[in-house]
């Protein structure tokens, strides 16, 4: 499994490293709030905790949170 994950990462990096150049003045759409990788931090923290308390899987989401006794 670990090997699979590492291999998939290399494949993803390979595909993304060959992307076309986008000049800074062409990044207006990318700078919009709705285009950010991390969304609304408060909303993300809420949903992350809810799912963490109901499911076995966690992590890899991006928002940091404190531990809780919910799982």
């Amino acid at each position, binding site marked *: *499994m670990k090997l699979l994950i590492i291999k*998939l990462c290399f494949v993803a990096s390979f595909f993304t490293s060959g992307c076309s*150049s986008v000049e800074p003045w062409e990044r207006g759409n990318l700078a919009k709030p709705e285009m950010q990788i991390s969304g609304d931090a408060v909303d993300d923290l809420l949903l992350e905790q809810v799912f963490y308390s109901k499911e076995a899987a966690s992590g890899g989401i991006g928002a940091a949170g404190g531990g809780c*006794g919910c799982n």
Partner: protein
Amino acid sequence: MKKINPLVALTGAALALPAIAADQPTSAKLSFLSSTYHEKDIKNSTILSGAGKRYDIEKNQFRLVTPLGENWSGDLYVSQEAMSGASPWGTFDGADDESSLIMSGATIRDKRTQVNLSGRKYNEDSSYGFTLTRSKEDDYSAKGFGVSGEWDLNNKLSTVSAGFSFSDDEIKPVDALKFGRIEKGKKQTRSFAAGWTQIINQNSILFTGISHTVKQGLLSDPYKLRDTRPSKKAEWTLSFKYRQYFENRNAALHADYRLYNDDFGVTSHTAGIAWKKSIGDKLKIAPRFRYYSQSEADFYAFGDNYSLAKTEAQSSDHRLSGFGSTTTGVQISYELGKWSMKMSFDRYSSKNSLGHAESEKEHPALLDFTLWSAGFDLEI
């Protein structure tokens, strides 16, 4: 006073920004969110003993983000929640499919307070941050910290990020003597994460990330009648987050996927999609859908086995069974000057048959819930 064209301002901001890395906030922002969480009651016919009324939670979240000097930002996050309801203590695997669940009474009440304090320093092509966390419930406390860094590469077309976090948790179960529970348990969590964010073109970006988490200590649930889990767990995740902007629709598509695996034997897939649509300058509507599926843990069993030694791994926790879930929701926000009012609704439904590797028998404690939230952001 000269009116600034918002598009020009935005493009200007984009010029000054690292492409996708965190940037120093230009003004302070206060956020508040109040949420009501409600779990659907369990069918009485599946309960052997205890109450079928499950959890209701009221939660308030507060966050203040502010620039500090020329190169720093500060972030204070505080949340408080109050919960009440019953939770599963165990299951009995009888010949009949019904009446298998042993629930607690409906008198469980708890409060939790969490505080996160973060700081971040911004350089021209990088930023570094730290977070301190503290969480306290009646029977559970956690202290933690995290450090992270981001580095822009390739004319800011790419950003590499890495982070480490640590949490030191302690549980002191209530009524330990009365129910023969462990009096005190400790758990430590160490987590590493690394990511690569890449601008693909003017309208799309992709994040690829991995994380590795090791939990050590009391991983069993001391409130269950018979729950023995290994004292160490290693978890891996691989995540993709794709963002695509559609100029003609004035909307952004979010597509996320996470692969998760741990050495308890659980593998899971999580896929999420959201359509963030702007209607005019002020109104934003974002319908969202999430699909989740997991396989069962190696030591999961539908019913508790009292003939097994207490040291042998076993758990009838429904969260370790093979199942799947869907979450359907929508978030709406409306801007009024410096205020942004927002509300959201999500409905979660879990079933054995929704999973990619369902357990032999559906666990009666698999749940459905609804989550309502309302709040605001205020630029100060």
